[in-house]
């Protein structure tokens, strides 16, 4: 059809065609419809956030009508399911902190060392082996880590550490550390590799050794990405559920050692939801109060980590 139109195109037609304003395009309603529906899909994420905040806030407010926020945030005893009940969240928060601190103590040095090895020392061939291994480690479901903690790490630790309970914070912390190690290693590796080679070469030219180049030039230059990876990993450790539920136990307490059974915020949520908790009761509402606290803590960590990335990123070139 187009061909025929072309053939019949005459001089007068061409003159007329010149008058058509190509900026005036007709509205394509079909496309408009499709584009709007794609836009709607994009809005789903905003909607999801809204729903998460709304539901956590609504149920938490119901909870805070029955329990004063002061008792919740500063109480040192968490006995929500039995009488006399007590709703101090500090033991749960402390349990989460213990696991997170332990995991970070393990994962931050090893993760950073792995990242340095991958970006500064490993041959391309070695990288091609190690990177997939880290990715596989990152892809293993957390319930598998829970199994690993309970049947391998804990028995091993009990042989070495006297007085270690079957459920203990130490085993949970180590396994969570193993879990977040790949996050730190791969993200830090990306950050270190983004540091331009000219900086390294400059330092080598001045006679620096590889250790000095790494610790005084490369790591400081990639520090924003490295810090962001630490924060992301810590936020993952805080939200980690299955491994700590299986390994660390269900005893909310303010224990200072890693040897006893503790309970994290996430493990508490699992414990309650496994029982048949009626909707609307105070026990049901504690779920949302604890989850709300968890949400706020991880959100703050994520926002800070993004802020560090955007604010302190050294842009070379």
């Amino acid at each position: 059809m187009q061909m025929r139109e072309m053939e019949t195109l005459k001089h007068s037609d061409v003159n007329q065609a010149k008058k058509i304003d190509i900026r005036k395009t007709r509205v394509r309603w079909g496309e408009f419809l499709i584009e709007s529906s794609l836009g709607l899909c994009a809005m789903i994420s905003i909607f999801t956030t809204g729903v998460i905040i709304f539901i956590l806030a609504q149920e938490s407010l119901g909870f805070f009508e029955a329990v004063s926020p002061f008792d919740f945030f500063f109480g040192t005893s968490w006995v929500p399911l039995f009488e006399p009940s007590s709703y101090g969240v500090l033991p749960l928060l402390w349990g989460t902190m213990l696991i997170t601190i332990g995991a970070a103590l393990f994962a931050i040095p090893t993760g950073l060392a792995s990242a340095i090895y991958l970006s500064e020392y490993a041959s391309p061939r070695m990288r091609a082996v190690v990177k997939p291994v880290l990715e596989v480690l990152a892809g293993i479901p957390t319930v598998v880590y829970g199994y690993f903690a309970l049947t391998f790490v804990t028995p091993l630790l009990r042989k070495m550490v006297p007085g270690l309970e079957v459920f203990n914070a130490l085993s949970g912390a180590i396994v969570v550390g193993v879990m977040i190690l790949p996050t730190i290693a791969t993200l830090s590796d990306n950050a270190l590799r983004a540091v331009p080679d000219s900086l390294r070469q400059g330092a080598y030219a001045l006679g620096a050794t590889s250790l000095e180049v790494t610790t005084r030039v490369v790591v400081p230059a990639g520090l924003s990405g490295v810090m962001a990876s630490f924060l992301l990993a810590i936020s993952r450790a805080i939200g980690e559920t299955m491994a700590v539920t299986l390994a660390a136990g269900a005893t909310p307490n303010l224990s200072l050692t890693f040897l006893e059974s503790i309970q994290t915020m996430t493990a508490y949520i699992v414990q309650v939801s496994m029982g048949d908790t009626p909707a609307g009761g105070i026990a049901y509402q504690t779920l949302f109060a604890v989850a709300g606290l968890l949400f706020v803590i991880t959100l703050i960590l994520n926002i800070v980590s993004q802020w560090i990335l955007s604010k302190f990123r050294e842009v070379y070139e």
Partner: protein
Amino acid sequence: MKRSPLELSNTNIQKRHRKARMFRLLCAGVTWLGAALLAILLIQITLDGIKWLDIQFLTSFPSRFPYKAGVKSALVGTLWLITMIAIVSIPIGVATALYLEELSHKGRIAKIVEVNIANLAGVPSIVYGIIGLAIFVRGLGFERSLVSGALTMSLLILPVIIIASREAIKTVPMSIRHAAYALGATKLQTAWAHVLPASFPGILTGVILALSRAIGETAPLIMIGALTYVAFLPEGPMDSFTALPIQIFNWVSRPQQEFHELAAGGIIVLLVVLLTMNATAIFIRHKTEKKLQ
């Protein structure tokens, strides 16, 4: 004997280089420790679970008796779940990525959506579980069904799919878009006929990785109450169900040694499913990387 400044600096240099070599060894050792941990984990699980792995294990329902128990309902439940998650999350995720990268005016709203998605990706999975419990199970009355599980999991992996798809779309060279525009294609035509096919392998890789994350997630399913004794196969989306990670969790949390070994058997099945998916993703990535070069 007094040393000359040159000699002194020589020993100093040797010391510094020795330190550097030790640091290098340390970093390499720590990295291999990670690989060793993976090896120990896999070997341990295989040793524990391999003797339970047989046809009977794959074709039996869970049971109080370890020698009779199997993963049939869990495996079928996981397959149901993953199919439904894929149907819900892939279209929405890819559509969102396409809209944000190709169609939206890169203004304030797009920026807000972007930050928002990054934050959603960091929300702990158990929080999604609670939201699923409140909305799908209780609010909309879907009960403890496959629909509740699939919708909850879809919310969880949507940010992952969106971020991966956007990365894939970003790698499509501008020249392809310009060529399409130059021939008079609209934005939507360009996105649909050129950008999407060109970024397809990358999107597929991201989607597979996201789905494999959904397969292993346990906490949200426990929240919506999938942790029940299910000795039947789900026949429709509204049926109650169990899934592999749930079954594994159930077995691990029992005190008896036999059930721990069953759990290891279940883990092997789960890991085989996961590794197959991951291997596919890595294979696709490898293929496309070669093509681009």
